[in-house]
């Protein structure tokens, strides 16, 4: 805690900050190559249909057009998860949503490519479109995909840890609440772009603003039917990701195929409308939470059910479904827990991982339900939560191992900072405060595809100039992962971050890092970087110890010098130390890698939820509700985040504030909705104007508290900050609305018409609630039963089945 660092823990500008403020940083669409062609994709204008004919001949004759491609040219399917390889770069015979790609044109100008799209004739034989969760549950036909657990139900999960019904029977209070969380999308400011260059030797390079170059590498090699050694992915700086650039995308593969076909570089930059069609955003989730508590608020059992509207493809959806159930147990003690989840296919753009991946929806439900529980029991919601925290260094009912756990101090910080005790239930009508908490993984414990190799690798090359080059597959999406890599290495080697040259996100040059998703990079890349740097340091230390004739334990690295700790003036520069090592050992390089610890869960589905460390957050929101209109304004947010050790507090606060912003957008106004007149399921508003993202005028003051003790699994004790702080903001606002005007909106977003309707109902003596009436009638299978640690279980299913298969079959 009191450990002295020279780089770690100090606010400092990012390594690429100056490039970002001068316009020097090159994003994907900024790249231009000689003879480059421009690509445009033709997308389906019907939500569900068979393609009966595609005629590209007119487009091929259009002046400036060099190549036209359709689904028959790229027949091999792909997808992010091995178990849902259900996408095609161009749809061969079936389209599944308005926006599904069916053809692509490469032309000498973007104008010519755009004009050529109008000259491609496509005939469709319409199929009935599936519009919603209810629609998909009720109509197994027509099947959107020929694989699934049950008709148009993509994935069904039923798990029980302990004995929920027996425990529930002993509760003092049992509540059932139903919630709906509308879908929303990432809306990165940068539209997806990719450029491919064909090497006549038979290789291809794809530059793309992807968060996951390694997974693009796998997908592109597969679809192009090329040796992966001949496919190179270079992740360009992402102009915002938030999870929206974590899947391999059709356009990345298509430009590579067109480059191969034409022998020329081919670039595409999607329009904003197409970005909405790529989506992979927040799943709409309909949820029921049944909770049993004692009079003091302690939970005796939780029974949670979720239905996810997955859209037209699998994407990360199986993992998303598990995530709607996995992390309920890591904040508060839940001794008995049942989770049932189902994800359906619908004819809409596919949902996937958005910041918080699958957890904001259940977190919202649980935290609003706990607010009701506290209200009903006459308890202060902050004090009640503090009493029921999951302890540090424990194993949850669903076999997640918790390390450091700073939620209690987080609650204290926001309660004190916001003057909670003088505000809660004490502010005048129309003003209110609400509190909520959450937790998030610091990296998923398992990779997307089963393998036993490291999740992150770093290579270092030290040269005699004193320069250090670091090679790592990690991808900077604005969160500062390049900076974290440099900070960790600089700290270990006693040099400055600016001394380190970074080569990242390049599958030809850098060791694999799985990508910028699941809040994994700081921890995993950081640990790999520390290991690589320590190994290099050991080589230098041996050489310097010999040179200075001091014991190796006394060799110290700081201030770009290597010296005797007991006699600091006795030392040499870092560059001289590298020279000494190079003379002794030859060229100096090192590697480091990181694999997360194994989780104790052994049941099917145990792969989703484990993490080397969990971050914790608590939030108090203050709101003003206009009772005449129902409009909710948020003047101030207090948020505390247990980050373990901040590697760079400036960046951590930036992540927290950005999470607050995005969370507020979700609870106040963002929604990805569709029109379905005559089953023409089409995005309501695929534009920046009508997809409502908060402007400077709506952003409240935010007070951020960084909390926590260094976690033994984190690099220098660091945990994640990029996703977790989003989660509590949404329920905190919902709870504050109740404190302000006494009505519950059990839907996200908390739109004015919903608040007003609830207010009017309340005035008429009704409940004062706006939200879903109930859950669909769906027969889940009997849950797989797993004994909890308290019951003496071994992490396996009670029938003794153990699953080597991970991630719920991932």
């Amino acid at each position, binding site marked *: 805690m009191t450990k002295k660092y020279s780089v770690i823990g100090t606010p400092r*500008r*990012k390594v*690429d*900050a*100056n*490039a*970002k*403020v*001068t*316009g*020097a*940083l*090159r*994003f994907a*669409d*900024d790249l*231009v190559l000689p003879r480059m062609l421009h690509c445009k994709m033709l997308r389906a204008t019907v939500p569900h249909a068979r393609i009966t004919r595609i005629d590209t001949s007119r487009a091929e004759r259009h002046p400036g057009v060099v190549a036209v491609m359709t689904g028959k040219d790229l027949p091999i399917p792909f997808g992010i998860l091995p178990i849902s390889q259900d996408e095609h770069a161009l749809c061969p015979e079936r389209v599944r949503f308005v926006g599904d790609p069916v053809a692509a044109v490469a032309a000498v100008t973007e*104008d010519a490519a755009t004009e050529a799209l109008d000259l491609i004739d496509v005939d469709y034989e319409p199929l009935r479109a599936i519009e919603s969760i209810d629609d998909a549950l009720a109509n197994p036909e027509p099947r959107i995909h020929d694989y699934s657990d049950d008709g148009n139900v993509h994935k069904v999960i039923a798990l029980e840890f302990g004995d929920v019904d027996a425990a529930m029977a002993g509760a003092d209070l049992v509540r059932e609440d139903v919630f709906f969380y509308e879908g929303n999308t*990432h*809306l*990165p*400011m*940068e*539209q997806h772009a990719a450029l491919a260059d064909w090497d006549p030797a038979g290789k291809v390079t794809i530059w793309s603003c992807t968060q996951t170059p390694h997974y693009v590498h796998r997908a592109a090699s597969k679809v192009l039917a090329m040796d992966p050694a001949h496919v190179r992915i270079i992740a360009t*700086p*992402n*102009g*915002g*990701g*938030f999870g929206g650039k974590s899947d391999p995308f059709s356009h990345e593969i298509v430009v590579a195929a067109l480059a191969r076909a034409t022998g020329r570089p081919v670039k595409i930059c999607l*329009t*904003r409308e197409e970005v909405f069609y790529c989506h992979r955003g927040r799943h709409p989730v309909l949820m029921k939470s049944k909770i049993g508590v004692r009079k003091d608020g302690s939970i005796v059992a939780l029974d949670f059910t979720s239905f996810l509207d997955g859209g037209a493809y699998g994407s990360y959806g199986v993992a998303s479904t598990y995530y709607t159930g996995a992390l309920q147990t890591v904040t508060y003690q839940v001794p008995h827990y049942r989770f049932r989840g189902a994800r359906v296919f619908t004819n809409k753009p596919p949902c996937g991982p958005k910041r918080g991946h699958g957890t904001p929806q259940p977190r919202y439900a649980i935290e609003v339900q706990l607010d009701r529980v506290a209200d009903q029991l006459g308890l202060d919601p902050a004090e009640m939560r503090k009493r029921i925290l999951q302890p540090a260094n424990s194993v949850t009912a669903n076999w997640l191992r918790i390390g450091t756990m700073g939620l209690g101090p987080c609650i204290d910080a926001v309660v004190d900072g916001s003057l909670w005790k003088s505000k809660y239930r004490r502010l005048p009508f129309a003003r209110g405060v609400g509190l909520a908490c959450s937790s998030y993984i610091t990296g998923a414990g398992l990779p997307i595809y089963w393998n036993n190799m490291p999740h992150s690798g770093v290579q270092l090359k030290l040269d005699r100039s004193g320069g250090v080059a670091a090679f790592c597959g990690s991808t900077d*999406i*604005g*969160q*500062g992962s390049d900076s974290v890599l440099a900070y960790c290495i600089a700290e270990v080697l006693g040099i400055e971050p600016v001394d380190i040259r970074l080569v990242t996100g390049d599958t030809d040059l850098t060791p694999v890092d799985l990508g910028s998703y699941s809040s994994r990079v700081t921890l995993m890349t950081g640990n790999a970087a520390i290991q690589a740097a320590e190994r290099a340091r050991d080589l230098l230390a041996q050489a310097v110890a010999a040179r200075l004739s001091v014991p190796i334990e006394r060799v110290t690295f700081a201030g770009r010098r290597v010296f005797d700790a007991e006699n600091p003036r006795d030392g040499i520069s870092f560059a001289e130390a590298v020279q000494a090592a190079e003379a002794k050992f030859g060229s100096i390089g090192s590697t480091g890698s990181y694999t997360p610890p194994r989780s104790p869960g052994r049941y099917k589905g145990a792969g989703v939820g484990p993490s080397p460390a969990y971050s914790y957050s608590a939030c108090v929101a203050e709101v003003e509700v206009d009772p005449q209109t129902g409009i909710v304004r948020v003047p101030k947010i207090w948020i505390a985040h247990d980050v373990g050790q901040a590697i760079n507090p*400036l*960046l951590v*606060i*930036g992540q927290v*504030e*950005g999470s*607050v*912003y*995005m969370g507020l957008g979700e609870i106040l106004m963002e929604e990805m909705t569709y029109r379905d007149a005559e089953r023409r399921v089409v995005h309501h508003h695929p*534009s*920046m*104007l009508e997809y409502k*993202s908060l*402007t*400077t*005028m709506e*952003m409240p*003051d*935010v007070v951020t508290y960084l909390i926590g003790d260094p976690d033994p699994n984190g690099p220098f004790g660091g945990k994640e900050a990029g996703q977790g702080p989003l989660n509590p903001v949404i329920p905190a606002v919902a709870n504050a609305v109740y404190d302000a005007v006494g009505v519950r909106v059990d839907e996200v977003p908390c739109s004015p018409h919903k608040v007003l309707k609830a207010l009017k109902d309340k005035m008429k003596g009704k409940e004062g609630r706006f939200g879903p009436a109930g859950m669909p009638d769906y027969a889940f299978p009997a849950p797989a039963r797993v004994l909890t640690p308290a019951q003496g279980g071994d992490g396996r299913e009670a029938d003794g089945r153990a699953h080597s298969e991970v991630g719920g079959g991932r």
Partner: protein
Amino acid sequence: MQPLVSIDLPSRQKVQAAYVVNGEPVEVAFAPHKTLLEVLREDLALTGTKHGCELGECGTCTVLVDGVPVLSCLALALTYRDRRIDTVEGMANGAALHPLQDAFAELGAAQCGYCTPGFLLTARALLAANPSPTRDEIADALSGNLCRCTGYLKIFEAVELAAGRMREAAPPRPAAEKGSR
């Protein structure tokens, strides 16, 4: 002001136009239906100007025309010929960052950095007109620039920091100083 002209251009022929871009006179030929955004990025290789929607709905493509921030995606390049255009590439003085650039970098106001050029130019025009803006005035002036990473707070702080440094570097004249008290 340029002399009044009337021109009549066929739609498929390139036209030549002159600008003063970041202080340098340039001449460039392009198709007449191109926007200023497209000409800057594609014909002048000034890719520091980004784009997020091309419909005037995000502010990412903001550049200054005669000092006034405009949406380059909705500005027909031809209409703005002979004007003074400033882009992010022209903000630094040689290797020395503009105080706004420095403050944005220092405080983490650029996360992904994609919206940053637009914010910098809008802020630059604000500080030229109002060297001591309040937080509300900053929010108002920047209300046409969307950012999805930062929640704007670090951007506000950076504008305030830069404004303070710029005031110190160029103290207001006595009369103005009197007026500002």
